[in-house]
């Protein structure tokens, strides 16, 4: 299967849904992050309860090409626990903010998971054989009476049922005073960055007791605080380059070769604002909730409240493409401010060949924006379209005026059903879409 076109010549079908059906959602079950690994074979989710669940793609049955490869549970573990920092009188949530996979180096898989304060490196390894035939122990572990041992034997490895173990290999603590919003593994595969509201740190994967501060935007006087860091990411190929976005809608690109402390940016990406259009909401809706480099490293995508923007790294003064996600919400900003929805942080992602981007919206809608064909479609992740291989029907929102058949009016949208986290398989047209507590997997229709 190739990554192919994407958006609109692709028909998306339901493949699987994970999670409970009932509407009574426990807070711990709220999905907070979704991430494919570099091969797409593994799919990890993190939730508000601090748990990680990893799914593995079943190897395709070559004799039955119609049989879609499914993702089944591979491993699950408790990554973070709730904590109370008595010194600072601070409650620390166990919610997993981000998961990032390391490229695979050997048989084991490694991922970084982080909550607001602590980053952990987890090793996920398989065990499919175990030693048997000990001299001093029975098979169940009880020690044998030495007096009864008359012969010696050599223990041998025998196959056993596959067991997948997750163990924390590194715990990176006390690096952040403020709340961590991003982690990003460097292409050098030795270092990674972590970003909180005011600072960005550089860590070495082997070293947990030290980290290097590369960005610090904390003002001397906190009364002068005007913007915070909202997301950060390393360039996919250039190990010296990273970007970070702000609550004021700007993106700064930093080059670690230029200086040790990257407070001064190398490039500043900012779209000039029309001052006559400025309103109370302008700054809030311009806050960037996610920034992602394209796979080819030439572009980056930002998500603010109402739009997705594609930036060419060589052009700082404006994005090369802007897509409206849900423009009909512009006339609802007052109520969205009152119910706090205006502060929702939507993520965005690229497909494997950077031709289509995807982001979530409300009412369990998500948007596919086809860059090459300049078309877009709105799809829905709902229990109604859960029949195997059922093709997803495009959805339309009626902004005002007469509502056509099959359209849904803005006032009927459910703002509690948010799709904040989505992920796209790195090579194939397989997407993972997280609703509040369910994970939907959709695949390209195969004829």
């Amino acid at each position, binding site marked *: 299967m190739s990554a192919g076109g994407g958006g609109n010549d692709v028909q998306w079908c339901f493949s699987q849904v994970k999670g409970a059906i009932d509407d009574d959602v426990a807070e711990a079950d709220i999905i907070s992050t979704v991430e494919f690994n570099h091969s797409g074979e593994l799919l990890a989710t993190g*939730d508000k309860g601090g748990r990680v669940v990893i799914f593995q793609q079943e190897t395709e049955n070559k004799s039955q090409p119609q049989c879609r490869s499914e993702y089944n549970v591979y491993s699950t573990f*408790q990554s973070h626990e709730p904590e109370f920092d008595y010194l600072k009188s601070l409650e620390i949530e166990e919610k997993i903010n981000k998961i990032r996979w390391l490229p695979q180096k050997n048989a084991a898989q490694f991922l970084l998971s982080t909550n607001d304060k602590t980053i952990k490196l987890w090793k996920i390894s398989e065990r499919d054989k175990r030693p048997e035939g000990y001299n001093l122990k029975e098979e169940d572990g009880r020690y044998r009476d030495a007096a009864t041992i008359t012969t010696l034997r050599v223990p041998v490895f025998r196959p056993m049922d596959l067991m997948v173990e997750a163990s924390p290999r590194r715990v990176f603590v006390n690096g952040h005073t403020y709340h961590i919003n991003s982690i990003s593994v460097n292409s050098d595969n030795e270092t990674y960055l972590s970003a909180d509201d005011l600072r960005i740190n550089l860590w070495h994967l082997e070293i947990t007791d030290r980290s290097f501060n590369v960005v610090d935007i904390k003002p001397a006087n906190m009364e002068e605080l005007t913007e915070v860091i909202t997301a950060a990411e390393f360039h996919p190929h250039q190990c010296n380059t990273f970007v970070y976005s702000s609550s004021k809608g700007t993106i700064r690109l930093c080059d670690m070769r230029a200086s040790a402390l990257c407070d001064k940016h190398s490039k500043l990406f900012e779209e000039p604002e029309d001052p006559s259009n400025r309103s*109370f909401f302008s700054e*809030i809706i311009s806050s960037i909730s996610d920034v992602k480099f394209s796979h080819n490293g030439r572009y980056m995508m930002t998500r603010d409240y109402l739009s997705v923007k594609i930036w060419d790294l060589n052009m700082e003064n404006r994005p090369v493409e802007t897509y409206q996600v849900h423009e009909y919400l512009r006339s609802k*900003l007052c109520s969205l401010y009152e119910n706090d929805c205006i502060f929702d942080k939507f993520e965005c992602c690229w497909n494997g060949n950077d031709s289509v981007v995807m982001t979530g919206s409300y009412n369990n809608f998500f948007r596919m924006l086809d860059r090459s064909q300049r078309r877009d479609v709105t799809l829905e992740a709902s229990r109604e379209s859960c029949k195997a291989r059922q093709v997803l029907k495009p959805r339309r929102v009626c902004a005002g005026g007469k509502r056509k058949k099959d359209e849904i009016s803005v006032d009927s949208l459910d703002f509690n059903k948010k799709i904040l986290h989505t992920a796209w398989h790195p090579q194939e047209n397989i997407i993972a879409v997280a609703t509040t507590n369910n994970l939907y997997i959709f695949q390209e229709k195969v004829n």
Partner: protein
Amino acid sequence: MSGEVQASTEEQQEMQDTVVSPEKAEEVKLKARYPHLGTRPGGSDLLRKRLQKGQKYFDSGDYNMAKAKMKNKQLPTAAAEKTEITGDHIPTPQDLPQRKQSLVASKLAF
């Protein structure tokens, strides 16, 4: 005289804005509901609230006082108050997050 002319031009501009920009219309709506809304909208207040997420105040003297008070009367439930907890609020053991006793598996894993 010229002052009055100026004022009506501004009023006209605002009316035009309401017609032209849905965003500005929403702003007018918001200001009508909350007339004392800060003059620096996206600024320090919002940011500081974001930075202070999770902050609680805990003092052992206050804690013991609160425990003593609890024996006599019921404390108002603070659980509903998810916004900033200032020094006036005295956290009790019930307010603090409990360490998980046992691992509850994620429902995604079934």
